[in-house]
């Protein structure tokens, strides 16, 4: 019985320590950037591997989610004779919720796991240690560009996701199902507010970008340097990042739209 309580206590302390370590880690990594000449090319390469390579999956899933929303929405709205509200429904759903959240989940699976595995393997093969040995700060050279790339890429991908989703909904709703194109757009423009909807979606995805990248990079950096440790860290990245995104989404929605 006493052992159980002790085990619980040590688990709690461990979690607390990990939290503290990750906070210090985030602080140091962000503090390390401002040298554009050295870090610019590194950052470009990271934006390529984090953002550009995630573009295909974002485009494809954006089109399909937009099309499915239009199809489902049409079937329900047409029952009340208000299928011209389709554009409004699809745009608000995408901009406020699905764009940021689904992009963040896909990003955690596609880019987050890759970041964790890459950094974890660097640690396991002692590349990070040898970098420190020759006087290069791995935080500055390896971690910091990946952070900034993640912060920049996720909002961009979320915006692309929403735009492509709206176009997919247009293809299904207007071209295929025959909703009037003029009322599709004008209803959308009347109900969607730039600051309220678009900007809040961007802020959401910015927060998700910070959290997902932070979790991914920290799990890689903090991994147990064995092959099993890397696999476990990668799993943890996807699970923690997804849960964090969904939980934070509720809080952010409550603050932004719930008049809290």
């Amino acid at each position, binding site marked *: 019985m006493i052992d159980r309580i002790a085990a619980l206590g040590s688990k709690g302390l461990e979690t607390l320590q990990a939290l503290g370590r990750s906070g210090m880690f985030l602080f140091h990594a962000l503090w390390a950037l401002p040298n554009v000449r050295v870090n610019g*090319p590194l950052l470009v390469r990271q934006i390529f591997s984090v*953002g*550009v390579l995630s573009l295909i999956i974002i485009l494809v899933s954006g089109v399909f989610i937009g099309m499915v929303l239009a199809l489902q929405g049409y079937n329900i709205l047409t029952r009340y004779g208000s299928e011209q509200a389709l554009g409004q429904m699809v745009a608000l759903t995408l901009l406020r919720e699905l764009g940021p959240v689904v992009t963040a989940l896909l990003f955690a699976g596609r880019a987050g796991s890759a970041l964790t595995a890459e950094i974890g393997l660097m640690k396991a093969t002692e590349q990070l240690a040898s970098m420190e040995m020759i006087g290069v700060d791995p935080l500055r050279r390896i971690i910091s560009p990946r952070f900034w790339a993640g912060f920049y890429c996720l909002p*961009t991908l979320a915006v692309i996701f*929403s*735009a492509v989703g709206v176009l997919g909904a247009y293809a299904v709703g207007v071209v295929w199902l025959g909703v009037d194109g003029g009322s599709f757009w004008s209803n959308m423009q009347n109900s969607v507010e730039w600051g309220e909807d678009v900007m809040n979606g961007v802020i959401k995805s910015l927060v998700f970008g910070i959290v997902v990248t932070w979790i991914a990079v920290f799990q890689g950096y903090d991994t147990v340097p064995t092959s099993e440790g890397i696999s476990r860290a990668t799993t943890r990245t996807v699970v923690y990042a997804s849960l964090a995104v969904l939980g934070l989404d509720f809080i952010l929605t409550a603050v932004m739209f719930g008049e809290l």
Partner: protein
Amino acid sequence: MRTRTVELAVGAFMLIGLVAIIFLALRVSGLSMQSPDETYRVYGKFENIGGLTVRAKVTMAGVTIGRVSDIYLDKEDFVGVVEMDIYDSVSNLSTDTSAAILTAGLLGEKYIGLTQGAELDNLTDGSEIYNTQSAMVLEDLIAKFLVGQVSSDDP
């Protein structure tokens, strides 16, 4: 060469992001470039504002000519005060313009409809619209209808 491909791809990625946000701004949210501050403010007192909200449309003959900027209670007369920002381009509303709170469709959003009067003087910044007509509240209508029904049944 390899670096160049990467840089090109990243540049294209940034460009696609920019195009997407411009698309969301202009096409989806209908953001227009006109500066929003060319307005003058008038107010009207209503017995009941119903479900009118801030930023609702102010229209005349169905055309949007302004927005509701503020709603509050007049604590002396116990009526709702609605402040409206009217575009400067519509500067020739007469002082006896009437304002009514209308509903788009049966259950749609509330908006204000203005009707031009006959006076020669025009409304200016800070003037009051005296001819006001309250919102139609569905419950009141139903209550009136029920009362009418009962009294007409009486011999």
